[in-house]
């Protein structure tokens, strides 16, 4: 038993796939929750399924775990077809959103469960349960009941329980959803670290873009049962494949139709990230009366417009400005709270805006 468990999970993180979905479709009655999804998660990767509620991301996770059977398609774990394999014979464990700790068992019994049902000897399973508890920094809690733990501690027990026999894949269903902000950020760091040190493939489901961007090696943005874009966080953020991705991952200024022509100067749909827009005093670039073409390219491929500030929200590290352009278009601008704010950056003040032309990123709508 011990032989097979210490299987090679070393530094050879080449192109082996941990999870592969091929044209997987799942219908619930007449509702199509997952629609012909193709997905590949590489071994040792921290992969996130990011999407709004009802997008089908949890169903995808349950399909990988084996709690749901796909209506069509094929699911592979480590290269083996597991489409018809029940959950108890898949080398993947789940951390549930509600943790699903067994209430009548002690923390230790909970953590050792995967070993208990496989018939591992008591001495060994206790040793390994303690080891897993150490990994999640819960030594000394072995004899408690789940009801005697805080939310964060239960979360850790759930993690230890799922990691105790080192599955090939760990599935996490909104694992941090029930925690408060400070704890959530702490756990984000910890999860990422845990994933790095164990080398286990993590497949995480979340609706929180911060969470996905912070922890993941790659993200798949899910909407209406389809994957809209897959890629590393930087790529998904900086080069969104669709207008939906641009709007869902981070905040953005989406400009389409007439507004695109007026503001960006080209037809199409464009995304300009609010932190890419610079604020200047309107006097600085010699601004013509904003009558006909309200925007004009500046030397160096920059584009400038003027507008009126309609809202200022101070949000700690940065300030968010809402600016109305002459034709009624609105832009959101984020500015780090350093010094040297333009003098006209006050409510109702006329302000100049500029951005690099390549920051107006075209997205298929």
């Amino acid at each position: 038993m011990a032989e097979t468990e210490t299987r090679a999970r070393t530094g050879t993180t080449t192109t082996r796939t941990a999870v592969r979905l091929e044209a997987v479709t799942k219908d619930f009655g007449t509702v199509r929750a997952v629609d012909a999804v193709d997905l590949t998660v590489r071994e040792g990767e921290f992969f996130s399924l990011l999407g709004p509620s009802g997008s089908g991301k949890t169903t995808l996770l349950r399909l990988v775990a084996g709690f749901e059977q796909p209506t069509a398609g094929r699911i592979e774990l480590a290269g083996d077809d597991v489409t018809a394999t029940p959950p108890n014979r898949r080398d993947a464990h789940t951390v549930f959103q509600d943790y699903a700790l067994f209430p009548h068992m002690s923390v230790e019994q909970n953590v050792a469960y995967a070993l208990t049902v496989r018939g591992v000897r008591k001495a060994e399973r206790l040793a390994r349960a303690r080891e897993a508890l150490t990994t999640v920094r819960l030594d000394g809690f072995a004899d408690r009941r789940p009801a005697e733990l805080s939310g964060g501690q239960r979360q850790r027990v759930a993690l230890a329980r799922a990691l105790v026999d080192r599955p090939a894949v760990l599935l996490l269903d909104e694992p941090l959803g029930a925690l408060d902000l400070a704890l959530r950020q702490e756990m984000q760091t910890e999860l990422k670290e845990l994933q790095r040190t164990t080398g286990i493939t993590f497949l995480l489901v979340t609706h929180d873009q911060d969470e996905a961007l912070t922890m993941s090696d790659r993200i798949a943005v899910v909407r209406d049962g389809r994957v809209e874009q897959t890629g590393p966080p930087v790529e998904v953020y900086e080069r969104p494949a669709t207008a939906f991705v641009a709007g869902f991952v981070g905040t953005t200024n989406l400009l389409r139709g007439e507004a695109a022509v007026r503001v960006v100067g080209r037809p199409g749909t464009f995304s300009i990230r609010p932190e890419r827009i610079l604020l200047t005093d309107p006097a600085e670039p010699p601004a013509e009366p904003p009558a006909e073409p309200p925007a004009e390219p500046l030397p160096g491929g920059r584009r400038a417009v003027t507008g009126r500030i309609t809202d200022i929200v101070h949000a700690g590290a940065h300030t968010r400005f809402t600016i109305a352009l002459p034709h009624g278009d609105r832009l959101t601008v984020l500015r780090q709270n350093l010094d040297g704010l333009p003098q006209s950056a006050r409510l109702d003040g006329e302000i100049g805006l500029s951005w690099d032309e390549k920051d107006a990123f075209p997205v298929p709508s």
Partner: protein
Amino acid sequence: MRLSRTARVVLGCVTAAGLAIVYVPLLLVLLNSFNADRSFGWPPSGLTGRWWRAALHSDGAREALLTSLKAGLAATAIALVLGTLAAYAVHRYRFFGRRTVSFLLVLPIALPGIVSGIALNAAFRTVLDPIGIGFGLFTVVVGHATFCVVIVFNNIGARLRRIAPSLAEASADLGARSWQTFRYVTFPAMRSALFAGGLLAFALSFDEIVVTTFTAGPGTRTLPIWIYENLARPHQAPVVNVVAALLILVSVVPVYIAQRLSSDTAGGRL
């Protein structure tokens, strides 16, 4: 909700009256079992343990008690096995006729006892009699089991609905087979419901008389039947009181414990 002073007084009185109507007669039975006066004169001329001693030595009462215990335990055992399996099946699996099965299982408790009694009597007469199984303890047990199953089924069903479905999923996810999930997760979570259901079923069987009348043979006397038969005999009256008092105690204690167990949420929490 805040109540006015008058409303509180009135409600208090009504509640007290309601409870008094139920419990004063029961207390009277208890008290009369110690009444020194053979014809239960009121107020009691004195208290005595004579009737309790007499009841203890009454062969008929002792035999009836034994029969009742046997019938109750056997019916409860059957109910626990069948009721649990049925509740688990109805809860765990989706199959054709699931609602119908559920309804048919619960129905016997709503049927008038006399109807069930007559039906069972006729059935036993036509089916069991020809193959040599006469009326006796066995038929009583089967008769009692029909409604005891309902109690267990309802108790276990309610508990299963309160256990988070993710618990069974988590168990399977961690590698457990179906029987292991039942053994390690589902069964412990419904253990107290099993106990409560069993106690209630036993209490129900222990004081049942209508179905018993129709399913018991001439030689089979459960405690309630024994009481009924001896009620009219003047010299047995004091002993009947003692047996009735005993019945009250044997019925109340399990129901009390069962209720405490059912409201205990430890099994279904999280």
